[in-house]
Structures are given as structure tokens and as C-alpha cells.
């Protein structure tokens, strides 16, 4: 497991927060053609499910916990995601850009 953590130490990290069933920031920019680590903090008192058909990702976000999902490398485009349990409120876009977005 130490090897697993060491291998991902240099991967760029990006953060999302879920509060009152709303993801912030609603638009997150990440670099193109690069694997990134997305850390989602669910500040709500109930579970939510991060879901994205565009990114092919699906993960339960437990209350008051941080969850990590790896995405990419991706070509420049806009990728939608939503909270499966509250799809009208919990929505956002990940914008993959060529420019460095540190």
C-alpha cells in the first residue's frame, strides 16, 4: 500500500466540495492529457453518488468524508458530472484545458 501511495504522490490534486447537495466549484479546470486526482469532500449529512457518463466514473460519497477519484488522461473537452441522488441540484462540469491550470 505504501508503494501505491508513493506512486500517486506526484499526481496533481484538485478539490470539489459537496454542500447542501451542490458541488463547488461548479466548473473545475484540469490539465489535458494528464492523470489527475480529484478529492471530493462531502460536507452533507447524507451520502451522495458522484456519477459521470462522460468520465465513466461512479463512486459513493459518504457523509463528512473525503473521497478520491482518479481521472484522465483526457483530451480537451467539457465533461459533465452529477450527484446521482440529487441530479437536479448536484451538477457540475470538469473543463479539460491544454493550458496549465495549476
Amino acid at each position, binding site marked *: *500500500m505504501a508503494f*501505491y*501511495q508513493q*506512486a*500517486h504522490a506526484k*499526481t496533481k490534486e484538485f478539490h470539489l466540495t459537496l454542500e447542501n447537495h451542490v458541488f463547488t466549484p461548479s466548473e473545475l479546470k484540469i490539465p489535458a492529457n494528464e*492523470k489527475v486526482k480529484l478529492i471530493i469532500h462531502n460536507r452533507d*449529512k*447524507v*451520502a*451522495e*453518488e458522484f456519477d459521470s*457518463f462522460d468520465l*465513466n*466514473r*461512479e*463512486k*459513493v460519497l*459518504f457523509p463528512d*468524508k473525503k*473521497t*478520491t*477519484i*482518479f*481521472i*484522465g*488522461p483526457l*483530451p480537451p473537452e467539457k465533461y459533465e458530472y452529477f450527484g*446521482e*441522488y*440529487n*441530479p437536479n441540484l448536484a451538477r457540475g462540469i470538469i473543463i479539460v484545458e491544454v493550458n496549465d491550470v495549476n
Partner: protein
Amino acid sequence: MLINTVILFIRDLLPIFILFCLVSTCVSPNVTDINKLLKLLKISAFGVVATYCFMPSMAELFGGIGIEVIQTIEILLAYFCLLFASSYLITGNQLTALQSHLIVIGIALFIVVNASVFVVFLDSYMASTGSMKNIMAGLAIGLGICLSFSALLYFLFAWFIKKELYLLTYIIWTLFLSGQVSKIVSLLQQVDILQNSVALWDSSTFVKDSSEYGQLFNTLFGYEASPSMEFIMLYAASLLIFLCCFLINSSTWFQQSIDSAKGKE
């Protein structure tokens, strides 16, 4: 939220209905025996409740990749249990006691993987709204849709068996299980155990993953609009395993037929 309950019910539980249709008509007709059903119900209920209770702790195992690792193991175990027990489709021979047990274990694991996520949704929904009326209505509609669809499939598969279209049912069984086992690729990719390569093609102009057909095809044979190389490799490996099982089982069956014919002479 009513619509959402119906959608999630279908997404999470329809695969269980389809699996049960396939098993009860083609793969192991004797599994629908009441004792086996009760045993299956007990194991599954225990598994779902235990998974639901320990899911938050499971998520933190192995540095936050616990659920993916455990679900991968469960899916693989279910896959091999069901694969090993599917010889009836080729040979027509009665399943052994071991194969019957494996079928029960395979279905139970499959139910645990799919149903535990739905229970998390129900709990979340109850905690945030407390509206029992909407949940009951959503569950009733979802159950109705799943039962109607599986009734159609049941009669279709029963008709295939009646017409002795065993090869066709074996192909359907192969595609269904290959689709299910290939889901471990995205599970492992999202926690970076498997590399995420660029999609080999993109058929979303024909059928989008998010569309009704996309989701139905995904449930039936693991359809992905833009599959990665790893997904295709696992899918192809699964098809190859089924082909090998088919060849081994059919040669054994052929040998047994020759031996019994010689015995009669």
C-alpha cells in the same frame, strides 16, 4: 425524486432480475427450488445488510480504495462461480451439488454488489426527505418495470430452450456475464490500480451511455460508447474463457455420448 428512485431501482436491480431469468430458464432450472431460494434470500439479505453497515469503513480500507477492491473480488468470485456452474447449457446434464451451491453463491454475491448501493441511496433519501410515500411509489414502479421486462425475457429464454437453441442462449449468457465482469475495469481505473488509456472508439453518436438504450445495453451485455483498451481486453478474455469452457464441456459431452452408444451396442 420519484423518477430518480425508479431510475436507480432499474439501474441497480435490473441486472439481478436478468440474471435470475437466465439462471432459472437456461443455466440451472432446478435453482428455483424453494429451499435453494430461501437459502439464497438469507445469504443475500445478510450480505446486503453487512455491506451497507460496513460500507463507510470499507471505503477507507487500503488508503481509500477499499470498496473498489472488495467489489472487484466479489464480481470476480460471482463470475467464476456462475461460469463453472454453466455446463448445463452445453451438456444438458443435471448440475452436481457443488455446481448448485456455486450458482447460489454466485447469485448472492451478484445481489450484494448491486443491491447494497441501492440501499445506500434509500437510506440517504429517507434521511434527507423522510417521504415514505414517494419511496414506496418509486419502488412499486421500479419493481413493476423490472418484473415486466424480466417476464418478457423469461418467456423468450424459455422459448429458446424449447426450440433447443442452446448455442444462442449460451452466447447471451456469455455476453451478459462478460459485460458484468468488465465493469471491474472502470472500478479499478477510478482508483488508479489500472491505467486509463484513451478510448478505442466513440459510438455515442449512435447510442449514448446516458440514454435509455445505452443503459439497457450496458445491463444486457456491458455496452460502453467509448471503451478503453483495458475494457476490450477484459471483455475479449472473458469471451475466450467461455469459448474454452464450451469446447471442453462439449468434447466431454461428445465423448460421453460415444461411450453410452458403445455401451448400448
